[in-house]
């Protein structure tokens, strides 16, 4: 019975994908979109069924579908596990997924390749479900690479523009760098334990058998590199802002709510590994925390000055992901998960809101050309405001609770990291409200043509916004300080009992207060700068100094280009033009040299009988002499 349901869960989006690929075009104008939405919604229903079930029984469901790959020491089967963690993830993947599918029906309704778009989205959901539900690391890897593929397809959805294609390619390749790390981690674990199955790995590690802890730490580090790729952490984060080339629903679904959280999912899934208390593993965790914190800070600083509405959101995503990794590094897995969920709500809402704006502005994404939109787009504005408050950590919105927990954990574990994370939070509040003010307040700065067309988006677009805004408001309820449903729910997953919950003591309240004040400071600066003074960011050419450095993202792309891309291409050109022909010439050269000897040999055979006779005699003399000196003759 479970198998049938699970297959339904897994294959509904896949069937949607196949159907849309082959027949999508024939389904009428919006047929493909509704079909795709329905497919995901089916998955959501099944997920919901199991979610309810596991809340009652707390028993995970495991199903082995078939044998997949055999290795000498062990074999890997294609198995599915539905436990607390995977169901939680499935809930928001399929839930938000359904909403975004619905949103896309309207958002994409002018595009001639809609059916492909929905096919890819369905395929993405399929791979995401695989990623989340796989019972071993390799099945997760299928999903892991599969979502990367869908991300590639969707970023480059408007394939006529080669810049978009470049962005898609970049995303895929940077993900692959991480994937190599993931694979190395898999190899090390497989070699150490002879299994990749989570349950088996867990029991092997928990049983305290003698293993090489350095190797384990290395495996963890390699896996973390994989997570960096997928979840856009330093140094592999640069693809995510570029990925905004894709249609906005894609940014919302893949590059904000679901796919990019796969890294957090993976580490949480393997918390029995990352949570080992060995010195080496502590170093690894420290690395994770530091990377996370710095990513949060660096991305936030870049976000301060971006003018592209989606770019700001993209850097904010990177920054928020950094915070989640900070939590992971500090061992607060359920806190990270909590932030993943709230972030999924408000970030999806923000992206969809920005999509709504872009939709109204006919593709315009530069905030310098917007302004005053709340007049025309009240629903979008309100949902956007709610989500912005949520991400800025203003109570009682959901972001407050999750971010506060992270800050609190950081404060307890490492004060320096806490300072960094707090700085990032303040900046977040600033740039989110900078975005809000520039977009929705003051006068409209676009062309008259644009102004003429401004309108609120249709219901198919606003409905998901409203739902998500509600969720962004109340999402914090699942893990209230001191009384966390989430921690309780995730208890069976967290191997080492999780971090001790912080008591609501004076420090905690003080920290909450500080966080709120920080958020308000950020908002205040934005208010003063953009609403009070009515500043508009300068044109690209007029930027100077630090502002310019930030605007150009610290020139990291350029540095990578100079460090990796250009040299590899230069080497390739050199090998192609010089080395290959030299090598080939070497082989040809052997032939040429032999030919040359042949040519000069022709001089020897000059046709003179005298010379022939002389050679003859010489030969005779040589042979006789040789034999004479060897005492034969």
């Amino acid at each position: 019975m479970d198998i049938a349901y699970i297959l339904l869960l897994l294959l509904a989006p896949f069937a949607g994908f196949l159907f849309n690929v082959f027949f999508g075009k024939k389904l009428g104008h919006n047929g493909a979109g509704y079909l795709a939405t329905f497919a995901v919604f089916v998955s959501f229903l099944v997920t919901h069924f199991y979610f309810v079930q596991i809340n009652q029984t707390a028993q995970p469901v495991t199903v082995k579908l078939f044998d997949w790959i055999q290795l000498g020491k062990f074999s890997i089967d294609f198995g599915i596990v539905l436990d607390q963690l995977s169901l939680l993830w499935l809930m928001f993947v399929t839930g938000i997924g359904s909403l975004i599918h619905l949103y896309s029906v309207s958002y994409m309704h002018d595009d001639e390749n809609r059916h492909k778009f929905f096919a890819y989205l369905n395929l993405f959901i399929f791979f995401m479900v695989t990623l989340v539900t796989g019972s071993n690391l390799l099945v997760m890897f299928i999903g892991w690479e599969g979502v990367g593929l869908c991300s590639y397809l969707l970023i480059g959805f408007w394939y006529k523009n080669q810049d978009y294609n470049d962005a898609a390619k970049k995303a895929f390749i940077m993900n692959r760098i991480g994937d190599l790390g993931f694979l190395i981690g898999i190899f090390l674990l497989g070699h150490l334990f002879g299994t990749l199955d989570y349950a088996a790995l867990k029991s092997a590690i928990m049983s305290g058998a003698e293993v090489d802890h350095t190797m384990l730490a290395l495996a963890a580090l390699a896996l973390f590199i994989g997570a960096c790729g997928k979840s856009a952490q330093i140094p592999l984060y640069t693809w995510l802002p570029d990925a905004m080339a894709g249609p906005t629903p894609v940014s919302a679904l893949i590059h904000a709510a679901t796919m990019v959280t796969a890294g957090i999912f993976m580490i949480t899934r393997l918390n029995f590994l990352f949570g080992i208390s060995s010195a080496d593993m502590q170093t690894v965790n420290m690395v994770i925390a530091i990377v996370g914190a710095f990513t949060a800070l660096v991305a936030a600083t870049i976000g301060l000055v971006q003018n592209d509405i989606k770019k700001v959101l993209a850097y904010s995503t990177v920054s928020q992901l950094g915070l989640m990794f900070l939590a992971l590094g500090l061992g607060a897995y359920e806190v990270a998960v909590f932030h993943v969920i709230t972030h999924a709500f408000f970030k999806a809402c923000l992206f969809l809101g920005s999509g709504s704006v872009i939709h109204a502005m006919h593709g315009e994404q530069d905030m310098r050309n917007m302004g005053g939109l709340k007049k025309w787009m009240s629903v979008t504005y309100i949902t956007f405001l709610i989500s912005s408050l949520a991400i800025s950590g203003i109570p009682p919105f959901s972001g407050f609770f999750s971010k506060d927990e992270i800050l609190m954990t950081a404060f307890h574990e490492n004060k320096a990291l806490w300072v960094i994370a707090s700085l990032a939070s303040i900046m977040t509040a600033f740039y989110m409200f900078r975005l809000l003010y520039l977009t929705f307040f003051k006068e409209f700065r676009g062309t008259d043509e644009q102004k003429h067309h401004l309108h609120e988006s249709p219901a198919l677009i606003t409905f998901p916004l409203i739902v998500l805004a509600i969720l962004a408001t109340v999402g914090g309820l699942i893990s209230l300080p001191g009384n966390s449903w989430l921690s309780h729910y995730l208890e069976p997953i967290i191997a080492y009992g999780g971090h001790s919950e912080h008591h609501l003591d004076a420090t905690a309240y003080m920290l909450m207060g500080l966080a709120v004040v920080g958020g308000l400071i950020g908002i205040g600066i934005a208010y003063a700068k953009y609403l009070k003074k009515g500043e508009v960011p300068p044109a690209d050419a007029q930027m100077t100094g630090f502002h310019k450095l930030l605007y150009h993202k610290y020139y990291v792309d350029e540095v990578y280009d100079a460090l990796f891309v250009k040299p590899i291409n230069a080497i390739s050109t050199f090998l192609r033009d010089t080395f290959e022909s030299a090598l080939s010439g070497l082989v040809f050269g052997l032939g040429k040299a032999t030919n040359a000897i042949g040519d000069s040999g022709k001089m020897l055979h000059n046709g003179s009988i005298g010379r022939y006779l002389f050679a003859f005699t010489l030969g005779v003399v040589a042979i006789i002499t040789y034999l004479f000196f060897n005492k034969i003759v």
Partner: protein
Amino acid sequence: MNTLLAITGLGVLCLLLEIANVRKAIIPLTIVGLLGTLGITVADYGKVESHYSNMIVTNDFSVSFSALFVVLGIFLIALSGDFYRDAQTKISDFVSIKLFMLAGAVAMVSFGNLSMFFLGIEVLSISLYILAASQRLNIRSNEAGMKYFLLGSFASGIILFGICLIYGAMGTFDIVEISELTGSAELPDWFFIGIVLLSIGMLFKIAAVPFHFWAPDVYEGSPTLTTALMSTLAKVVAMATFYKLLTGMNANIYYEYEIVIMVISIASMTVGNVMALRQASIKRMLAFSGVSHAGFMLMTLLNIKTSAGTLLYYASAYALAGIAAFAIVLYVTRNKSNEDTYNFNGLGKTRPVLAAVLTAALLSMAGIPVFAGFFAKFALFTSNIQAGYLIVVIAAVINSIISVGYYFKVILAMYTQEPTEDKKPVPFLFYAVGVVAILLNIAIGLYPSAVINLIK
């Protein structure tokens, strides 16, 4: 013995037929006669006999090689009809000279006495001098004849000197007695000098470096059919005789002597192959290729006790491929003033069968499987590895690689170039000889043991 008599008789018959003025019958009759001779020869297989106080000895070695010679002779005579179409009046001379030469060849592998050997080699050589120079009005033919003659007589002198010294040391010309004496008595140095001189004479005949200089010039200048004869029959005969001399007199005793053979073998392969690379004339190219094959065949002397079968096999493979190749060369260069490779352009399109035969022949020489040349090389490699001469094998391998270069030049010309002229009619016998020779080649390539085990 019977073979020798039959061939000589046929030669005389040819001359008589000319007198009887039945010129047309000469070639068919000769071929039939040679087929009969082949039967007689094969019938002798397995017997060991000696005739005329051990002058002629028949054994498996001589019978097998004689049979090979007769087969080659049949092919060569079959090709003669068209080749001498402009000299019909002299056809009996050409055929009978070839037959006498064949008789010389048979004598050379059947000798039991060095005087018989000497007569055989001289009969063979003189016939070749005549054939080489047989186009009286062609200066190239004259030159070829002259060069061959001068160098050949020079070599004959050395052979004679060698025989003389052996006689001086042993007091006999009978090789059985000589081989008994070599085992027992304290030998004077002359004997070895004699063997060495004799060897040098034979190395000249097989055109081994550095005694090969005549070969390309003579091959190029001689009438093409004579070239075919020299490069197939004459070379194989000389090699078989060389082998027989050394084994018969039990002379190959010293390591240093083997070193000399080894060096000459490697040098021949290398010089032959490298020189062949840059030849425009296919006859010259085949001449140098012949030099390299001589080097290969010399490898059999390094494992002399057991390699008679290998030699027979290699000789058959090489000679059959050579005959097949020359049948095509004869067709292509008919009425042509030279034999340059460009004459073969587009043969693959105009005459696919002939092109295929030539391709197969060249592939066989290059040593590509299923053709006999492949197994021949392989057998050589094995026997030399057994003898411990790895270095020769490696040299042979490298040389095989070089050889592909020039063999494929011709193949390329046939298949990738556009034909320069229209189809000419192909004489039936050219077809027949080419196809039969290459089929025989493939047949022994598929069943090497049929040949290689003839001589135990």
